[in-house]
């Protein structure tokens, strides 16, 4: 079950899953290329966990089909059990067995794959070492910290050598420093393995940082997918814009009087037309042709956020360093870039 040959690690088409009367996934389409890390970004309740469970075979499909590494594993007629699908999973709450030591936990999938007890233990120890928790091999989950538990959970998933890793908010319950550290580790390990991964998260920073591609999930449907830069810079609607980071919206005519348009636009012709535009806080600079009054100042350590009132509306501006103005100061700003919001579909 090592990394799949060139081709799709996952192909999901029209997947429908319901809990009683409520539909958790509504005709969802998703592709993951071999070796690719896809972040599925969505708020809680959007269906992230359901999606991962459906791919893993922990629940059945009502409609649609799922192929893993070119093999049909789920459809209303077909239901390959989880243990025979080439996937491994990392759980949000770790899912470590309280009665097994870290070593036995990591050896578990190896034993299921038919390895002897000694060989499994040796390999499990190697994996724990790689995750830098080798010294904790004999501990039970209750004796491990959250970060250590998740490292063990990750080692268990690696032991399975799947074609596709399923990561269900793997860092959601860790504090910020640990989170960042484990994110790097995750990305590095997955890529070293050459396997594909689906990384479900509600944390936009995490999604943008770890993924080759990001898919936005809303009410059981993928509403946008693209590279991290694409989903950040070119959201398909307001909801997607706000989900992927701080955003300000202004109704402007870039060519109109009193408003200096973007010096560097994001491509299409219609970028110069009047309409509704989104501006990211890092696309703005203090000092420029647009008059503004500082409404609010938030110092955030590495940078400072200003809320600036202009004639067209309030804009959030972010610049590196410490605050330069107090609230109430009159100043001006310049817009480097804007994204014209697509017209809402009827």
């Amino acid at each position, binding site marked *: 079950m090592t990394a799949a040959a060139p081709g799709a690690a996952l192909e999901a088409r029209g997947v429908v899953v319901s809990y009683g009367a409520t539909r958790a996934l509504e005709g969802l389409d998703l592709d993951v290329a071999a070796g690719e890390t896809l972040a599925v970004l969505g708020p809680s309740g959007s269906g992230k966990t359901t999606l991962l469970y459906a791919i893993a*075979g922990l*629940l*059945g499909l009502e409609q649609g089909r799922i192929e893993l590494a070119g093999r049909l594993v789920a459809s209303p007629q077909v*239901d390959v059990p989880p*243990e025979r699908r080439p996937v491994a999973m990392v759980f949000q709450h770790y899912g470590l067995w*309280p009665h097994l030591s870290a070593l036995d936990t990591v050896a578990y999938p190896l034993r299921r794959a038919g390895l002897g007890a000694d060989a499994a233990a040796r390999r499990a120890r190697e994996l724990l070492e790689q995750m830098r928790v080798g010294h904790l091999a004999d501990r039970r989950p209750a004796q491990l910290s959250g970060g250590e538990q998740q490292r063990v959970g990750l080692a268990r998933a690696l032991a399975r050598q799947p074609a596709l890793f399923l990561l269900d908010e793997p860092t959601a319950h860790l504090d910020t420093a640990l989170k960042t550290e484990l994110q790097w580790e995750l990305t590095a390990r997955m890529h070293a393995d050459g396997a594909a991964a689906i990384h479900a998260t509600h944390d936009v920073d995490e999604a943008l940082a770890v993924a080759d591609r990001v898919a936005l999930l809303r009410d059981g449907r993928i509403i946008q997918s693209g590279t991290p830069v694409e989903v950040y810079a070119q959201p398909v609607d307001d909801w997607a814009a706000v989900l992927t980071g701080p955003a300000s919206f202004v109704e402007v005519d870039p060519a109109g009087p009193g408003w200096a348009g973007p010096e560097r636009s994001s491509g299409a012709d219609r970028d110069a037309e009047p309409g509704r535009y989104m501006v990211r806080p890092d696309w703005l600079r203090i000092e420029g042709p647009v008059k503004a009054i500082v409404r609010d100042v938030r110092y955030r350590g590495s940078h400072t956020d200003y809320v600036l009132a202009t004639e067209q509306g309030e804009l959030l501006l972010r610049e590196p360093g410490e605050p330069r103005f107090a609230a109430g100061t009159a100043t001006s700003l310049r817009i480097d870039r804007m994204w014209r919001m697509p017209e809402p579909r009827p």
Partner: protein
Amino acid sequence: MTEPTIAGPPVLPDTTVEGPAGARATRPRGRRVPGAWLPVAVLLAALTLLVVIPLLALFGAALENGLGGMWEAVASAWTSIWTSLWSSLGATILAVLAGGAIAFLTERTDVPGRRALRLAMLVAFIVPGYVAAVAWLDAYAPGGLVDDILGIAAPALVGPLGVIMVLAAEAAPITYLVIAAGLVARAEPDLERAARVSGADALTTLRTVTLPLLRPFVAAAAVLAFVLSVTSFGVPAVLGVPAGLTTITTRIYRDLTFSADPESFVRAIGLAITLAVATALLIWVADGLLERRRTEPSGVFGGPLGNGAMASGRRVGGPVPSRFRNRVALAGVVAWMGVGFVVVVPLVALLLTALARAPGLPPVPASWMLENFRAVSGSSTLGALGNSILLAGAAAVGVMALAAAAVSARRGRGGGLVGGALAATFALPGSTLAVAVLLAYGVALRDTLLIILVAYLAKLWAIGYRPLAAGLDGLAADLSWAARVSGADGPTTMRTIVLPLLRPMVVAGGLIVFMFGLHEVTMSSLLYGPGTATLGVVVLNLQQLGAAGQTAALAVLLTLLVALASLPLLGRSGLLERVGWRR
């Protein structure tokens, strides 16, 4: 967990607790406040009067007769001890298998009628053992309902088979509750999912993950089932004695009630002690075994039943992979057939017997009448009804007052000991307690309701204490702290914040005690005198006289009363759910 286990190390009342809910918290150390000694004093006085003095009297009487004589007396009842052992063992195995299987169905699958199945187990829980025994006779004995309709009868019902089956039926609801609590609290579904995506098939997952995680709960369920069976009096009295099978409990009854010779009296004392020591030993060993394995608090009384483990459980489930559906449906059908066989058919037979004009008539409306009900509404029965309600009511009020005192006292020093002592009284067999109370207060209180009440209070105290303590444990400490930093002192916080929040638990605990008091028979059968018989005693006496119709009529009345008392507990927005006895 602040609910101490029997054998565990003393648990300080103010330790940080990480329960399944995660919301348990450090309770502030009790500050010295005026009046804080009152609950402790009440508690110590009650413990002394209700438990310590009777037990001292029991052991004193044993020593008086010399250990050698005691040993001989007990040895002469060897067959009774042996009968108790194998019947309880058989019942335990059956109850754990049945309770465990149904718990698995209701907690791990979306079997049709899941809620109804849970309710059926709770109904089985409130039907007292001797009523179940009588009902089984009406259903499956020769001349019973099934014999009438299908011509099938089980002549061996009176005898080993019947005793084991009905004891198991009596214990199954408890094993069900404990194992279901375990399935909810201990084995999170994520752990099983993790096994599946690690390459384990369903059976391997069951073997390597689900069952090992459940082991403490299964062990606790087995211990409880065994203790329940070995201390049961009603079931062997109805189904064992007529076949010449005596257990420890029925032997104590016979020696104490029907025999005037001193040797029988000594034997009753010896057997009472044997029973108590055996159950205590069993619980102690089991608790020790559980203690060693566990990474989280459990133990027979500390764990599964000890706090609101069930209350905190989330419902798992959701869509089941389609490949399971047929098997789940089949298992559901089997479970429902079992429930029908064990609960529904006997209760229907009981009702029909109560209504029957004469034994053996076909179960059609033409042969029904209310004569049996009229016959049992005589003055002696009415008196017994009054006695039972009075005793149960007094026990409910008294127990909840004592439980409140115990919960308050627990906040101070030595609180852990209080909980331990209370848990121990619940483990004290009813027969032992009755003999002890008789020895201690028999001279002064013989043939009064008060002596029965003393036994009830001692026995049922722990039952009322548990929901209250669980409720307190489930209460986030922030709530009390918020009151304290808002200017309330300790007693005021108790009065204005803690007790109002615990009110549902107080009501639920009181109702449970009332229920147990209504259908109690083990202790009252040893302690009653002229004019102080309880309903349970009258049912047993009628049954022994062979008045099947009247027995059934009274059993139906009794069951209806108990059901009525338990109605608020079983309701949809049920109190039981709020106090953690079920979700």
